[in-house]
């Protein structure tokens, strides 16, 4: 408790030396509030306008991006959810069926089959 009180007194007690305080006071006097230049307000409004335009353009760009994303999602959903009615015969067939369809003139090698059976 006593140390807390001492700390508090110490914190409140540290004042700047009179020399520095006097210098700060002179500094305040040496730098009075300046008048704004003639271009202050026009320049400020130009900056506000350009910032507003930037925010507006960014907002528009963001909206466009969102619209395009939503449209793409819808298109993809439709594409994937639509049932496929006409499957190509190739995708419905087995590998052997496809081979047979590609080479209709080929006949099975009966001699080879026979020789294997006799073995």
């Amino acid at each position, binding site marked *: 408790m006593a140390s807390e009180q001492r700390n508090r007194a*110490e*914190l409140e007690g540290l004042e700047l030396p009179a020399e520095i305080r006097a210098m*700060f006071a002179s500094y305040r006097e040496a730098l009075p*509030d300046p008048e*704004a230049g003639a271009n202050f307000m026009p320049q400020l409004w130009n900056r506000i306008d350009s910032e507003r335009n930037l925010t507006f353009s960014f907002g528009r760009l963001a909206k466009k991006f969102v619209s395009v994303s939503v449209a793409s999602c819808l298109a993809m959903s439709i594409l994937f959810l639509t049932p496929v009615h006409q499957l190509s015969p190739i995708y419905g067939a087995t590998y052997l069926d496809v081979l047979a369809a590609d080479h209709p003139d080929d006949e099975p090698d009966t001699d080879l089959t026979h020789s294997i059976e006799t073995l």
Partner: protein
Amino acid sequence: MLVDFELIESARGGNDAAFNQIVLAYRKRILGTISRLIGRPEDVEDVAQEVFLRLYFSLDQLRTAEVFEPWLYRLTVNAAYDYLRRQKRRHESRMSDLSEQQVMMADAVAGGKVSKEELRRTNMKEFVDSLLDSVSEEDRVLLTLKEVEGLSLKELEQVYQVNENALKVRLFRARQRVIKAFGKFTETSAKFRGVD
């Protein structure tokens, strides 16, 4: 308050004419505070415009019109911090980088167009600027607001949004550091003058 609450409410509602009136009412005070915070006359208007630009785009975040002034001071302090940090990055030491005013003063002194009083004032200003440059941006801003601008602890609490004790600790440390820097400065200048 330099403007009434209705004007602030009107500006918050998006009335540009009301905002314009607020800027006209506060710009001189803000320009003065910034000039003492950053110590560079040629950049004061630019930083002040940055403050009002931030004010324009953050007015809707202001809770009530009653806290407008601390809010504006807070924006001023933040803009000054940003400027000082940028400056520090650009030139690690400002001692070698003469401001326009310093160059003009040097010319005037050379031409014999400046009085002794003006010269003394300029030297004092340069000394305080150097002294404040030797502490951190945080200390510089806090000391300027308290010791130069004369803000009370209550006002500083609102600007910094911290409690009284925390503020006193910061102030205590900032004062300690500036006293130390002042000691070093006077020691160095005594050495230059050849005084023991």
